[in-house]
């Protein structure tokens, strides 16, 4: 007993390991265990200068590898001579009092305590045995559990075995009311109703609890609850972050997560689809949407940023998040230098980055599954409406006199046709005057400073890949023979581009915008000048003329006409001789990246005036054909063009425009798309982790201290995802199981849920962790299966009280590391909010869709950039579950943030649990809590039955348990006092009760009590 207590206190002081695994207490004189006692000390005091990072290694001495520690250092001394502390430089140095000699040196500002020095000394004495780091060795089912009762039984076996060794006993099972409340919050994030609690409490069936668990696991709210945990890791938010923090659409990914979890998608598939769903053969839209996981990184849209720099930051975030989420490693430390503690080299960090670096980051339209059918229908409707346009012309007035050869008594139909014919021919006449013979050119070469240019079948050029704030395209076109007078640039829409193009602006500026700052030409290698530019459309402050003015700050753009084709025509100062090569140089500069996404070039040798029009070159060609040379279908094409362009039908065409829009108005979610093989994006090591200091190039690769990629596997993102969830990977299953454990028990078997490296804590129950990890994989990575086993265990079902039999454990182990009692943890922010709404009977169970704006106190947004407004939602949207609340990174929803909800800036593996006066103010005064209190007050006021019966129901609804006599006394005293004050008019019943039907004093009375109950400690605790 004494020994155990002193171990516990010393362990708390050392702050690294808590409760040495397996062995309750080291026997005096035993060789200290390397993993539990020695390495934590070496790691804390020595590795920074004598560890894996060779760049900062001092004296050429490395202590994390035994052979190195035993060999002669630079000084000629051996740091460690097994069995001989007196000859070991390490021991001499840590014992030294000479400031020149002592280790760690005074400059490190880390002093070893005498007991720590003693551990190292005894370890050397005992032969300095090393052991591989537990987490880097594949887990196995071992440790003595031989039953066949599954994981739940294994949990109890390992936990109780350890309790027994510590002389502790497990707590009794919690009562049924406590149990249903605990497991309901844990599995669905919601409390049970009073009726559900009673039904469970009174269910005589032997498997009552299991039935309850199965029901909860099958409810759609399970997926919402556990999606929220995953959203924390994915740093999900509805805005881009940084200064402007503008909205983004990525909720389709959030909905994908909910659905996947509800469907119990195996965690290995869940992983692969999110990291590399786009690369799966025949990837479905759902698998593409899944790749949004790593598009939750922030996007800086501040004026004048370097987009590539923030792309680099996003990549670093992806590496850190992947490390934390799957590997439980603090990979981020190796961004600037080789990891000081774990064996991750600087180079390997960038090799991991390379997996993610080869993806482009497009928007993906989320279309309904029947989209193609719908598109065909809409196209048919458009065709139909177009034909019908001809009927919109006014018939020629009959009194206009008889048409030649006719009697003058024509039908309206015939008279209308006459109008149509006249309008068409006058349009033709008009258009023929301005149509020019254009020859579409196909580039023989298209390259750019950084974007990837690919020539499309129609001779147009499509840009993809990275952008800078000053992009340049170089294009070579063979010119036809003749005297070329002008160049025509058609900018084209494309659904692969932001907002449908034609530009590629995706941040800060309007999506789909571009700015052609300068167009330069040379023919046969000699520069030629343009003398004039016209455009069919130009955004404010831009013009085609400004694209040939030699000023890179001005230019031409078509913002406002996204999704539409437009053209600009540039005339040569004097005609140029064809048959040679035309070199075009296009410059795109703005304070944001604004290059062109898709365009086509045509030339003409027409000597007349050329004005840019939106009419395509193909139509121009038809317009220039002699009337009698037109084939009937060509004439039909021209006629359709006429119908779609003639100003007379402007108003009549709105329906067609609307139809066309209905095909593009789908939400676009953020996804990954692996780059084409021909255009891999190189990855470099970055000196000191700085964007501006790229060093040598690296190929994708996994950490060498873990299992290798299967041989023959291409080193790409898909292979990486599969590697993460391969059976050989020692970390992923352990980390995942541990995180689940932490969610139910309040802390993990490894307390540092995000660090399984040398600096992380040792598992309290290593054999159990390994057993669960292996079992999890063996059972097909089923998350629901794992959750079920955890909550079915006796360990989970224990009472959480510290009194009675639990007292000894509470004193010895206040943190409950040994699980001698059940978990007692404060509810998460969403659970608190959703629970109150459910109790008040207003919670909406609507799933998915865009995020909503429930009420919050005014002033939350006032410090955010641009002071955006918070347009509070109406109706049902006020009462959606917390995970659907619009998450704004720079001004998070107040109530969620106050209760430790994350802002979405970084990957969060386990939320903080704080206890602050601001939380008390929220529970007492916040509009959501007040509304819920009024709602529930109204329900109680409307009930029939005695005060005591109502109190019984209310109490159970809020706290999930029957009321005790003492409770009743206190509540009744409170009620009596408020009733008196309401009767005398001291209290303003109407104000207290809020709007609503029913007796206002009754509602006010019960509202005042509900508000108090909401603030009881047990109301926000999972007991």
């Amino acid at each position, binding site marked *: 007993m004494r020994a155990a207590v002193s171990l516990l206190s010393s362990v*708390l*002081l050392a*702050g*690294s390991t808590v409760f040495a695994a397996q062995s309750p207490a080291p026997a005096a004189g035993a060789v200290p265990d390397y993993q539990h006692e020695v390495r934590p000390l070496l790691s*804390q005091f020595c590795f920074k200068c004598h560890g894996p990072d060779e760049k900062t290694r001092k004296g050429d001495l490395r202590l994390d590898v035994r052979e190195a520690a035993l060999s002669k250092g630079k000084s000629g001394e051996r740091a460690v001579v097994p069995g001989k502390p007196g000859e070991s430089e390490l021991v001499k140095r840590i014992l030294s009092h000479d400031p020149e000699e002592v280790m760690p040196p005074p400059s490190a500002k880390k002093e070893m305590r005498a007991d720590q020095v003693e551990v190292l000394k005894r370890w050397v004495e005992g032969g300095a045995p090393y052991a591989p780091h537990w987490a880097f060795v594949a887990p196995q089912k071992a440790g003595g559990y031989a039953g066949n009762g599954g994981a739940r039984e294994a949990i109890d076996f390992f936990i109780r075995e350890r309790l027994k060794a510590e002389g502790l006993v497990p707590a009794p099972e919690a009562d049924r009311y406590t149990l249903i409340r605990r497991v309901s919050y844990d599995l669905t994030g919601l409390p049970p109703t009073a009726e559900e609690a009673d039904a469970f409490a009174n269910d005589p069936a032997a498997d009552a609890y299991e039935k309850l668990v199965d029901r909860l696991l099958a409810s759609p709210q399970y997926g919402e609850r556990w999606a929220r945990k995953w959203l924390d890791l994915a740093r999900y938010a509805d805005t881009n972050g940084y*200064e402007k923090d503008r909205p983004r659409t990525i909720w389709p990914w959030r909905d994908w997560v909910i659905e996947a979890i509800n469907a119990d998608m195996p965690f290995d598939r869940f992983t692969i689809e999110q990291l590399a769903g786009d690369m799966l053969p025949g990837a479905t839209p759902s698998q593409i949407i899944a790749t949004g996981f790593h598009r939750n990184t*922030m996007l800086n849209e*501040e*004026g*004048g*940023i370097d987009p590539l720099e923030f792309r680099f*930051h996003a990549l670093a*975030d992806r590496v850190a998040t992947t490390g934390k989420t799957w590997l439980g490693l603090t990979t981020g430390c190796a961004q600037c230098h080789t990891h*000081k*503690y774990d064996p991750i080299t600087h180079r390997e960090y960038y090799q991991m980055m390379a997996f993610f670096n080869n993806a482009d980051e497009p928007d993906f339209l989320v279309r309904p599954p029947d989209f193609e059918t719908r598109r065909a229908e809409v196209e048919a409707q458009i065709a139909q409406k177009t034909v019908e346009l001809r009927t919109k012309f006014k018939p020629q007035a009959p009194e206009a006199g008889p048409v030649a050869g006719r009697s003058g008594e024509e039908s309206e139909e015939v008279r209308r046709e006459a109008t149509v014919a006249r309008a068409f021919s006058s349009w033709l006449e008009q258009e023929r005057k301005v149509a020019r013979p254009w020859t579409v050119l196909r580039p023989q070469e298209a390259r750019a400073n950084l974007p990837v240019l690919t020539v499309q079948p129609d001779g147009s050029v499509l840009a993809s890949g990275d952008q800078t704030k000053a992009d340049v395209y170089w294009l070579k076109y063979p010119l036809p023979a003749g005297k070329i007078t002008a160049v025509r640039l058609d900018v084209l829409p494309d659904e692969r581009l932001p907002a449908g193009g034609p530009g590629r602006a995706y941040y800060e500026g309007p999506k789909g915008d571009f700015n052609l700052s300068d167009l330069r030409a040379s023919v046969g290698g000699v520069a030629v000048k343009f003398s004039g530019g016209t455009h069919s459309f130009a955004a404010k*402050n831009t013009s085609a003329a400004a694209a040939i003015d030699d000023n890179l700050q*001005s230019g031409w753009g078509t913002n406002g006409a996204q999704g539409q084709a437009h053209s600009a025509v540039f005339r040569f100062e004097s005609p140029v001789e064809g048959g040679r090569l035309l070199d075009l140089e296009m410059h795109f500069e703005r304070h944001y990246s604004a290059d062109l996404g898709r365009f086509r070039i045509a030339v003409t040798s027409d000597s007349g005036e050329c004005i840019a029009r939106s009419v395509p070159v193909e139509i121009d060609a038809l317009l220039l054909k002699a009337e009698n040379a037109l084939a009937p279908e060509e004439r039909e094409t021209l006629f359709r063009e006429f119908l779609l362009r003639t100003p007379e039908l402007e108003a009549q065409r709105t329906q067609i425009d609307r139809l066309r829009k209905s095909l593009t108005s789908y939400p676009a979610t953020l996804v990954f798309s692996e780059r084409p093989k021909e255009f891999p994006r190189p990855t470099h090591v970055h000196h000191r982790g700085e964007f501006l200091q790229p060093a040598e190039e690296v190929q994708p690769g996994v950490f060498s201290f873990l299992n290798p990629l299967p041989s023959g596997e291409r080193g790409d993102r898909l292979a990486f995802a599969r590697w993460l969830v391969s059976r050989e990977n020692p970390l992923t299953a352990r980390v995942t199981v541990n995180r689940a454990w932490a969610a139910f028990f*309040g*802390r*993990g078997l490894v307390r*540092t*849920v995000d660090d399984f490296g040398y*600096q992380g*804590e040792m598992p309290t129950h290593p054999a159990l962790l390994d057993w669960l990890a292996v079992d999890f994989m063996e059972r097909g990575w089923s998350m629901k299966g794992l959750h079920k086993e955890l909550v079915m265990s006796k360990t989970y079902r224990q009472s*959480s009280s*510290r009194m009675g039999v639990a007292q000894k454990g509470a004193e010895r182990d*206040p943190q*409950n590391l040994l699980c001698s009692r059940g978990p*007692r*943890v*404060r509810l998460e922010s969403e659970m608190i909010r959703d629970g109150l709404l459910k109790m008040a009977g207003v919670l909406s169970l609507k799933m998915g869709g865009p995020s909503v704006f429930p009420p919050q106190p005014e*002033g939350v*947004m*006032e*410090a955010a*950039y641009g*002071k955006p407004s918070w347009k509070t939602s109406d109706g049902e949207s006020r009462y959606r579950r917390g995970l659907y609340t619009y998450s704004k990174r*720079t001004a998070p929803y107040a109530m969620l943030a106050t209760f430790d909800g994350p*802002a979405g800036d970084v990957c969060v*593996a*386990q939320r903080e649990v*704080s206890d602050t*006066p*601001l939380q*008390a*103010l929220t529970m*007492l*005064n*916040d*509009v959501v809590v007040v509304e819920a209190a009024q709602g529930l007050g109204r329900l109680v006021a409307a009930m029939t039955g005695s005060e005591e019966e109502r109190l019984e129901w209310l109490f159970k609804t809020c706290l999930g348990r029957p009321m005790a006599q003492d409770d009743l006394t206190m509540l009744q005293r*409170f009620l009596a*006092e*408020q009733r008196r004050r309401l009767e005398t008019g001291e*209290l*303003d019943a109407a*104000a207290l009760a809020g709007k609503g039907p029913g007796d206002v004093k009754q509602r006010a009375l019960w509202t*005042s009590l509900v508000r108090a109950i909401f603030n*009881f*400690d047990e109301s926000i*605790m999972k007991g």
Partner: protein
Amino acid sequence: MNTLENSYLEKVTRRHFFGECGVGVGKIALASLLCGSGSRAWSAGQGGTMDPLAAREPHFAPRAKRVIHLFMAGAPSQLDLFDYKPELAKLEGKPLPPSVIGGQRYAFIRPDAAVLGPQYRFSKHGQSGAELSEMLPHLAKVVDDICIVKSVTTDQFNHAPAQIFFNTGFSQPGRPSMGSWALYGLGAETQDLPAFVVMSTGAGISGGSACWGSGFLPTVYTGVRFRNQGDPILDVTSPVGVDARLQRETLDLVKGMNERRLKGEGDPEIATRIAQYEMAFRLQTSAPELMDLKSEGKETLELYGCDPEKPSFARACLLARRMIERGVRYVNIYHEGWDAHSNVAGNLKSNCGATDQGAAALVMDLQRRGLLDDTLVIWGGEFGRTPMVETNPLLGRAQGRDHHPQAFTMWMAGGGIKRGITYGATDEMGFHVVDKPVHVHDLQATILHLLGMDHERLTYRFAGRDFRLTDVHGKVIRDILA
């Protein structure tokens, strides 16, 4: 482990093992903080109890007990306020040589943009003879009480990253801010008000809440915003219909129930919650009392030039003084709006008009009340502005200045800072620092130093690493210490 941690660890562990836990008030589970394990797994009901805001001994005797940081967000033009460069007037209209500009990236201008001369007249003030522009007539009156640092440099040239960098030592969100570090190291001296307060005037803040966030430190160290609209502190006002007596009776019922629960469950965390509710109740009184400026004399209101009813920078300065008088440790006042990409002269006129008197009044007021000696006042932005002009017809900009990370000016006063000196210098064009460069990390180290903390020893173990405000950088600027 650092000694600071050691000392409270021992205290707490002793307290815990001698059975004190669970009976005192204001104790909060803080296992990880105490153990330095950095695990975020510590939580309610999990042991080691102690108040994370209990006042603690610093590493060494502090010169400043409190800090008021006047953050001029958007970045004021040092060239038109403090750093007088007549050479710029001579060069006006001509580009700077590329050798001066080096590889610097710019937000909006091209590196060959022409030079823009000083926009205002400068003159010397006080015994120290410090040069200030005519835009700062009020500051001129306290110029002998402040230390002007003309050689500040930063790593960041965009607002959000630079503001976050200045506050947290790192350009991305997710690290603790200076105020959070100060509370982590020193605890709080008041139980009636938040110990770290944030106010703001002007436009919305580019860096957002990351500027006063607690990052990976416990949430309790987050800066608490005092708002201009609605309740000064979120939800500090009881709902309509709830009068003071009902609020008290509600709290009494809550307390009674919680005390019984504590007896039944034995979880010391319940005691913490009881204490937090009491503090919430006190906040409901102390916040309105703080905001009520009736007790301030007419002379004081005139000194600050503020309307006691209307939110303004000057009123925020006055409130800051009232806060520190009541034990608040760290106050941030943001004034966002200095981002003069166009018409820098007009921008300065309006922003100096809004801030100069309040800032100077704060120094005077602290001085005459004897508070300046142990209160550190800091004034400055996140970077400087270019000697070159920003003009852009596409954006309708003219006579502006772009972002300039290489050199900018800040001033500090009180709390152990030398009075009436100017420190550091830039070249003739005000482009580069040529004398005594002060990096943002150096300022951070200095601020912690003045608070009695060694920036290399104030660490927190998170994700396997001991983090510091200054990362692996920072040197205390000894020359400006009094």
